[in-house]
């Protein structure tokens, strides 16, 4: 109040001399008026700020004083969250349950009903320069789509037994910092993260559109079927094009037994080029071309490529009708540097290339609020004549809210080694915690 009085007095003192010197000519007066108007506006802005501040305080006091105010079912109670908690990272807990029936060994690896994964994720700003994200997944022993291939071999029985044993393996899926505003418009990422190999590799289990990962990903990337995640550094730059186009380069530690040797001197390098075009207000197409290469355990080179195409449709005014069609083709050329047969040591070692390639294509169509139907086709070709897996899946998902899903999937895969196998899977999952934005 005293401030307001003071300011008013100031206004008066400014106004009086201007009036007394009014005879100095109309231009002069206009100029002075303009200056005065500016000052008045300045004062008004300051008042507004002070009033807003006071209103905020009054509102807070009023809220503290009154009880029983109900706004859309929000009960009122004294604030209980200690201030220190505000600086804690955002934490999410996301369990995923699967119940399966049928004779497909990929699903038989787990029990008929199991908590196949529990994901814990954390995110927060590190300081004014970086934001960080970490995700730890507890996987049920033996859950992983690479198992199907192993069952074909002699070790299958043992693997299956291990799968049925109790227990979980903890895996750090990702733990990285992002530096979003570097000079030159670069965005830097450092730590452990999913390699930007196509669109599907970086998806966490709870964002999958089907109950399992497409077969091609596991065949081409190998490992336990949890995707290619590695320690490294990545940088992305948006190109000066009228549509969205960006390039990403990554240098990875190369610790992935089925792809790269992971010796200290051998890094794997990734280069990705993305284009995103709006076809209309409600539809778009995204194309991503990725190349990845490094040295493998035999000393030869492993080269991978991926071409990913996504079409999306979502009318602006109807968010309950979305349509997504994604197709990815990927290929791995594994150059084996082996010794000549029978010698062990040879001056001219045998060299050959093992090619694994795969393709998937799926549609996910939201037909009504909370309901979506989907279909996926899989095709994989392993090295060796006639070694080909192909299959398809039909999916129905119900989302009671954004934070829960119940999914039924029927899948039939014709394995090169095992022949045709069927599986009926029911998946249930929910998510606790803030729903952060997912990558588009």
């Amino acid at each position, binding site marked *: 109040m005293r401030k307001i009085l003071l300011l008013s007095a100031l206004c008066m003192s400014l106004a009086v001399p201007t009036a007394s010197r009014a005879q100095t000519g109309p231009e002069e007066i206009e100029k002075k008026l303009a200056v005065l108007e500016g000052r008045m506006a300045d004062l008004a802005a300051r008042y507004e700020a002070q009033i807003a501040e006071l209103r905020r305080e009054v509102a807070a006091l009023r809220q503290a004083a009154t009880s029983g105010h109900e706004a859309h079912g*929000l009960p009122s*109670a*004294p604030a209980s969250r200690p201030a220190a908690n505000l600086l804690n990272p955002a934490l999410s807990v996301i369990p995923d349950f699967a119940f399966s029936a049928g004779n497909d060994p990929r699903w038989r690896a787990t029990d008929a009903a199991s908590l196949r994964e529990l994901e814990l994720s954390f995110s927060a700003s590190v300081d004014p320069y970086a934001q960080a994200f970490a995700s730890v997944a507890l996987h049920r022993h033996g859950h992983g789509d690479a198992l199907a291939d192993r069952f074909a071999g002699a070790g299958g029985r043992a693997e299956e037994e291990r799968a049925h044993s109790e227990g979980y393996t903890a895996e750090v899926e990702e733990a990285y910092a992002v530096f979003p505003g570097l000079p030159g*418009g670069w965005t830097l990422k450092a730590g452990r993260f999913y390699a930007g190999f196509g669109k599907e590799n970086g998806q966490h289990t709870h964002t999958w559109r089907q109950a399992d990962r497409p077969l091609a990903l596991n065949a081409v990337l190998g490992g336990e079927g949890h995707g290619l995640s590695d320690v490294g550094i990545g940088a992305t730059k948006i190109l000066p094009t009228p549509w969205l186009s960006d390039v990403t380069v990554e240098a990875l530690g190369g610790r992935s037994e089925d792809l790269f040797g992971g010796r200290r001197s051998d890094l794997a390098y990734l280069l990705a080029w993305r284009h995103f075009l709006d076809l209309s207000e409600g539809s*778009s197409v995204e194309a991503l071309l990725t190349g990845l290469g490094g040295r493998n355990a035999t000393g030869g080179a492993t080269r991978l490529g991926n071409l990913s195409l996504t079409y999306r449709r979502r009318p602006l005014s109807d*968010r309950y009708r979305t349509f997504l069609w994604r197709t990815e083709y990927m290929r791995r050329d594994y150059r084996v540097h082996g010794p000549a047969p029978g010698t062990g040591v040879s001056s001219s070692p045998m060299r050959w290339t093992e090619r694994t390639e795969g393709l998937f294509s799926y549609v996910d169509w939201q037909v009504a609020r909370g309901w979506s139907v989907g279909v996926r086709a899989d095709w994989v070709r392993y090295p060796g004549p006639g070694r080909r897996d192909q299959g398809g899946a039909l999916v129905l998902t119900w989302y009671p809210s954004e934070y829960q899903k119940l999914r039924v999937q029927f899948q039939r895969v014709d394995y090169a080694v095992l022949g045709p196998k069927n599986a009926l899977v029911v998946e249930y999952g929910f998510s606790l915690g803030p729903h952060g934005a997912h990558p588009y």
Partner: protein
Amino acid sequence: MKTTLTALLLLAGIAANGGDRFRVVATYDVYAQLARAVGGDRAEVSALADGRQDPHYVEAKPSYLVALHRADALLLNGLDLEVGFLPALLQQSGNKKIQPGAPGHVDLSRFVTPIEVPRAGADRSMGDVHPFGNPHYHLDPRNMAALARGMAEAFGRIDPAGAEGHRRRGEAAAREFLDLDAELGRLLAPLRGSPVVTYHSTLNYFFFRYEIPVAGYVEPKPGIKPGPASLLELERTMRERAVRVVVAEPYMDLKVARRVAQDTGARLVLVPAYTGGQEGAATYGEMMRTLASRLADAARG
């Protein structure tokens, strides 16, 4: 050769920058319009979402990155309304000028006082609740006046050479909002005290400002799909309190809203809550007048 190249690069830089103008991106069209009024010729303004979209469910489309990458200022609603798409976009934007903490990151909610802040903290049992309060504050014209002045101040920091102009235009815009507020107050005076039912809490700032009580919501809780039991309860309340009007934004699930209105003999009124892309909501003034007159018409029967 080098000189030519430098000159070309310089020219390209100037062309890309559009002379002296600074680039503003607003998450919603309603703030882009205000930015045009406040920034005048000095600001080049674009918006991410338009009025046909549910503001809660804007997607993090990569094409938005083109504008964000080049922006000098980002105007956002704040109060977590953009939580589903903006953090991911900001992280990928490669633009330090608009990151949180930078002068170009203008969270407009800091110029207003939010209502419906859950004091016990938020919990998902309350539905998709906004933990920092109701984020649709633009529906009170007095808040828009405060925004106009706040925005002018923010623009003055980003574009000091034009600060005086921003302040002048901000003040003029603020006065217009206050005049609009008085006009709407007169128009809605007959509705004072007569209860309505609305779909979601989007319009609550408007209802609170003009003293129109909200008897209930079509959604049992924010973002939760209504079920038979919750609708029965709502219809009972409507009959008890003689509610004549059900208000909804066009992007809501209108089948349910229509049925509620039919069952109780009330009128379903579709109103715009965000500008852009819809009939009767090209500008803020037009939108608010449409909103008020449709309500007044429905109440008259």
